[in-house]
């Protein structure tokens, strides 16, 4: 198991290097830092001097190594709009996005597992047919449309739920960094609509995935043997079939959680949610290149970390993987 974790972590570091290289290449080739920094009155000669001082004339590899060195110290460049290190800006915005993704993930798990299993066990029942029909609708509806519809129904017409902002939050660590909406009623109310609309894209996919995996597992010889052993149906479905169903689902969930971070851009914009996605859109409007690149690298890292954790989890539930890691 230990060797397995080491191997997965090494792979993760390699992927991170590639992401950083792409990020750096974009930063290096698009935009001119000197132009961003100096005013119009600076002469071409002075510009050339600044360029030399900043090391912008060095070969690409040398600059990249310097970039990596700085990145290792947490320095990914300055956001010229915020006049602060870009990483600092993003870290300040991260908790809001994380809570959004966490809430959406929670909804996906809590809804898709029972529904997926139920529709697999009772494919002909009314609820199953309804779920499958509804999920087709869900898959084909873009997230911003879902979000606007939810706001219209629950915010504008019914006045049940607030439609923008994060509401009342609680300071989690006492230093003002992580403002959490999970611990106040108002904060939770504000979470509902954004989380539901973010979950709406992935939810139908997961119901369908769990359903088809479960149906496939139910047809296997080992499930038939479990029936022949005279086990109670609940044990066959919820223990024997369910664990085998989970294996592929866990992997897909890892990838989808990463993709959800990308989808937060849309959701956060519609709901005025002060997270990384909302910030990203603002940064695009202001051409804040350093901030954009840092966003890319941070989201890339989250993606890699989530996937590594999921792979390790997968190793824990699948005994054949554990053996392969030991060798």
């Amino acid at each position, binding site marked *: 198991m230990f060797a397995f974790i080491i191997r997965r972590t090494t792979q993760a570091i390699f992927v991170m290097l590639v992401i950083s290289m792409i990020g750096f290449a974009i930063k290096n080739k698009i935009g001119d830092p000197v132009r961003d920094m100096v005013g119009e009155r600076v002469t071409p000669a002075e510009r050339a001097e600044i360029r030399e001082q900043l090391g912008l004339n060095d070969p690409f590899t040398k600059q990249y190594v310097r970039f990596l060195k700085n990145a290792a110290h947490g320095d990914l460049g300055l956001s010229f709009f915020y006049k602060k290190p870009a990483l600092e800006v993003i870290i300040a915005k991260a908790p809001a996005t994380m809570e959004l993704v966490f809430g959406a993930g929670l909804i996906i798990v809590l809804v898709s597992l029972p529904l997926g299993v139920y529709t697999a066990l009772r494919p002909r029942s009314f609820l199953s047919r309804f779920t499958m029909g509804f999920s087709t609708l869900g898959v084909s509806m873009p997230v911003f449309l879902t979000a606007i519809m939810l706001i219209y129904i629950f915010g504008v017409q019914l006045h049940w739920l607030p439609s923008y902002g994060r509401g009342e939050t609680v300071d989690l660590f006492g230093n003002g960094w992580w403002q959490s909406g999970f611990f106040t009623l108002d904060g939770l109310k504000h979470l509902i609509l954004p989380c539901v609309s973010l979950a709406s894209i992935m939810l139908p996919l997961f119901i369908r995935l769990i359903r088809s995996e479960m149906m496939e597992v139910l047809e296997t010889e*080992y499930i038939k043997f479990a029936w022949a*052993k*005279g*086990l109670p149906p609940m044990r066959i479905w919820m223990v024997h079939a369910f664990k085998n169903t989970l294996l592929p689902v866990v992997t897909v969930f890892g990838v989808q959680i990463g993709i959800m971070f990308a989808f937060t851009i849309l959701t956060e914009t519609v709901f005025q949610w002060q997270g990384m996605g909302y910030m990203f859109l603002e940064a695009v409007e202001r051409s804040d290149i350093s901030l954009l690149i840092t966003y890319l690298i941070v989201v890339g890292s989250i993606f890699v970390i989530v996937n590594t954790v999921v792979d390790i989890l997968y190793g824990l539930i699948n*005994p054949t993987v554990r053996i392969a890691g030991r060798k």
Partner: protein
Amino acid sequence: MSHLLEVQDLKVKFALRFGDLTAIDGISFTLDKGERLGIVGESGAGKSVTGFAIINLLSKPGFIAEGKVLFKGQDLSTLPGREMRKIRGNRISMIFQDPMMTLNPVFTIGTQMVETLKAHRNITTQEAEKIALEKLRKVHIPSPEKRLAQYPHEFSGGMRQRIIIAISLLNDPAIIIADEPTTALDVTIQAEIMDLLQELCQEEEMGLILITHDLGVVSQVTEKIAVMYAGKIIETGDTQTVVTDPSHPYTRGLIKSLPGALKTGEKLYQIPGMMPNLTAIPPGCAFNPRCNLKDEICLKEVPLLKRTEKGIMAACHMI
């Protein structure tokens, strides 16, 4: 005297879109305590379906259309699910064809054995593990204490089949149904597994229904044989008599096609043609298109099983 298991005129059908397909067309046989019965036939003759029908575990859309499966006088074919579960894996166990597919890959051998005991008895895990160890020893698994914590992929095919046999023995069943238990294994392992099954049945006085297409295995292990063709039993009786002196032309063809009686280099005998598809069984005797003895009557009338002078039953107009 009533039999341990008595299958009476069993018909199994599959509900398909274009109508019901008859997979098993009225078969009857009996099994007594400690008796070993072999069911042989080509693929698609209805052997496995018979096995699953006995424990009422036909996969959809299969169902028992007619007939009875009497186990100690109780009709299993009409038993409600809850009652049937008490029989499966407890009084009647089943061993499947491919040991690589039969064990759940994500649970240890111990878990899969203990749950089988707990499903049928009110015992603690410790007690269940003790019984599991005892049964693993019985099927000659070396150092069984270590094995309980291992996963199926850590065993070879032969070892897995032994473990599956141990699982089927856990609740000391009265009958074991073995559905081609050695088909997926190496020849050397095949002999070991068959010897083991025979030995266990003799020791415990268990009834065995051995489903196979291997006549050699049947003649070694079983006392009674039933030859199936297109969903019917066409010859049944004492194994030695049927194998050494078959009556039905189909059984004769099967025996003739065994390589044992031939010299090296000689061409193997083959029954001409193929078993008919279940959707297109010819009128009269189902074997008539392939039979070299056929007459007018074979094309019109379905032959019934009748006793021959050798003391066995055969379904052929020409005997």
